[in-house]
């Protein structure tokens, strides 16, 4: 029900607001729900977040993103191996 789009944080202000970029489209977003810094104290500048109604709602986990795709590649390989096409 909820259009959430991955966007990259390209600027962070002092007041929990920042600028997010989606394919060259930029908008002010609120970072209160994810914080301007991660758990290691690193600024979220450059990180990717899920944006919904002007708020960053979740930080995208790059490792998990890769694992989802790696899992797919295994399916892909298995599929072709099963059909003996490789």
């Amino acid at each position, binding site marked *: *029900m909820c*259009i959430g*789009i991955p966007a990259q944080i390209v600027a962070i202000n002092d007041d929990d607001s920042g600028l997010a970029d*989606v*394919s*060259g*489209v930029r908008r002010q977003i609120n970072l209160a729900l994810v914080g301007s810094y991660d758990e290691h104290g690193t600024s979220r500048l450059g990180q990717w977040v899920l944006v919904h*109604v*002007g708020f960053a709602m979740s930080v995208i986990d790059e490792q998990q993103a890769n694992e989802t795709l790696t899992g797919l590649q295994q399916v892909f390989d298995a599929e072709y191996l099963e059909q003996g096409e490789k």
Partner: protein
Amino acid sequence: MNTINLAHGSGGLGTQQLLDHLFMRKFANPLLQAREDQARIPLAALAGQGQLLAFSTDSFVIDPLIFPGGDIGKLAICGTANDIAVSGAQAGFISCGFILEEGLSYRLLETIVDSMAGTAARAGIQIVTGDTKVVPRGAVDKIFINTSGFGVIPQQVHWSMQHIQAGDQLLVSGTLGDHGATILNLREQLGLSVELQSDCALLSELIAPLRTMAGIKTMRDATRGGVNAVLHEFARSSQLGMEIQETALPVKAEVRGICELLGLEPVNFANEGKLVIVVAPQAAGQVLDVLRQQPLGKDAAIIGEVITTSGVRSTGAYGVRRTLDLPYYEALPRIC
């Protein structure tokens, strides 16, 4: 003169002053300056060009008045010029009617009129007759413009929806939805900042080399309702089907970004400088090459074909076909 007032539309001295200071000066040409009640255009020169006169009218009420890539004035000239140009004709003469809201800034009106004059001059079009009315505050939204124009369809050009046949290819001259995406963001103040411009442009140069090419069945300039609306017009007229490939649609990254963010589709966004062309299959490749050689056509693409089953459809990336509905309303941004 700071603002427009009711006297400027009353037909008396106020009107004369506005005409003299602004319209007559900016649109200067002998036909207009003859100051008859009508423009008198010699027939002989026109008659030599062809048998048919293409005549079109359009009204412009866009908000905001000025936007990246253009303004209501440029749009008013391009819109009618393009409507004529897609018949194969070249618009030579245009009328324009203004309805102005009392209190409109004179500076703003002048900017718009300058833009109209410049656009018309670039197109070789003369604004030869016109009308101005001023209405009380609130009766219109700042400024409405109507333009009408005509041109002669060259003898050898026979573009018409009647010629559409199954198997014909569907081409677009460039990226979809640039104008609509630009305007939506501004008009609804969505707070998106994006390097996007309206594609508002005169299409006569892009069309010129196509007049002598074989295989062109018909063309339209996509405006309100986008490419989708044109496909529906073609389908309705020919009783055939229009089927496009989603992956073939040329879309700027920023327009795509706006569509993903707001849950919208580029085929429904307005354009103001793009052609949808129906071409016989054997000529499609050549027409594409000719379009791509020009700046306005560099992103031209074959997006689909005409089929016998009536209706308008889109085939997606996974081969699934779906109906491409003609929306009743303009789609609004979604968050759900």
